[in-house]
């Protein structure tokens, strides 16, 4: 009776994990997930929000480091938001240059080229950082969007960059929301079960 709430939460968490590892939830797979030994069955994660690296983080969590995953993810969120903010302002600055220089073309042409170059390069550097940290935590989709974004910045395509930024922010938001849900459910489950172990440990 004590475990009922916990068991339900655990099932919910499994559903959420399935969603994150693969976009589509298939019923048979869901039932398979209920069994611990197949819980981490990874099927084609081409569309997955998360990949195996996230599982690696979970494996590294133990009694000596019981909050490892949430600590790492918190840092990831903090750093990602800083990077996104920087990219956003660089893109705005680039937009200003575009519209401003349209009127003062001759005078500022060379300066514009230098400035644009620098700003696109800075965007590229930020994206590399975001790609690196996303790959380190298993944020697969975010990393994929960064790749496309980086290509747009290398081509100095402002509209390409803007579109990429929109998709990136959407993906990041989705990831953050889902991971927060996961951590919340875990806390509730631990309370409901009164248990010391949690299902994220293999």
């Amino acid at each position, binding site marked *: 009776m004590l475990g009922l709430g916990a068991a339900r939460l655990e099932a919910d968490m499994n559903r959420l994990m399935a969603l994150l590892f693969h976009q589509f939830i298939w019923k048979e797979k869901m039932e398979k997930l209920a069994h611990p030994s197949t819980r981490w069955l990874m099927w084609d994660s081409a569309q997955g929000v998360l990949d195996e*690296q996230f599982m*690696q*983080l979970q*494996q*590294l969590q*133990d009694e*000596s*480091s019981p909050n*490892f995953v949430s*600590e*790492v993810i918190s*840092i*990831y969120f903090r*750093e990602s938001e800083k990077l996104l903010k920087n990219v956003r302002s660089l893109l705005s600055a680039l937009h200003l240059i575009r519209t401003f220089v349209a009127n003062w073309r001759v005078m500022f042409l060379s300066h514009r080229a230098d400035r644009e170059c620098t700003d696109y390069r800075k965007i590229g550097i930020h994206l*590399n*950082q975001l*790609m*690196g*940290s996303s*790959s*380190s*935590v*298993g944020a697969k989709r975010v990393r994929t969007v960064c790749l496309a974004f980086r290509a747009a910045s290398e081509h100095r395509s402002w509209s390409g960059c803007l579109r990429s930024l929109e998709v990136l922010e959407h993906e990041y938001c989705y990831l953050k929301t889902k991971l927060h849900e996961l951590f919340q459910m875990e806390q509730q489950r631990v309370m409901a079960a009164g248990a010391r172990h949690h299902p994220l440990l293999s």
Partner: protein
Amino acid sequence: MAFATETQFHVLAVDDSLLDRMLIERLLKTSSYQVTTVDSGSKALQILGLQDDQTNSPSVYSDQHDMEVNLIITDYCMPEMTGYDLLKKIKESSSLKDIPVVIMSSENVPSRINRCLEEGAEEFFLKPVQLSDMNRLKPHILKGKYKEQHQQEVLQDNSTTSSNNNSNKRKAMDDEISPEMTRPRLTSSVTVL
């Protein structure tokens, strides 16, 4: 060859990303290594006692001349001093050149990998680094220890005349190391040198 307590080897990890430092520290600790992490090549050199730094940084232990490091694992892409630059400086130093160095990178660039291996890096890990990669560190550490032991023996040789003794020691070390020696890990798309 059972020891009551296993000696903990000390690894110095260098990475400018806080997140990656957390990860590598956890990976190493889980694999029973003692870990020190720094965020730049210059800090790494300071800790190793190589660089003369005028600024008083609270994070650097200036008296740590006897901080023994058995392996250095460093990120490749870092501002100011890259992992490659750090590798070069280590290999150029008489006191540090025998410490094994492993390079990590998030990008699979064959020319980069070859350059590092040619400069003396033991291995090249593709990020994200996995727990299984930690198993590849010990052979390099043991090789480093062997070199260190060998150097000490050479010094002994010069001051004593017991050459027979030394050849037996060397043999014992060989037996310890050879079963575990493996080729450097590279991705399948890269041809080994």
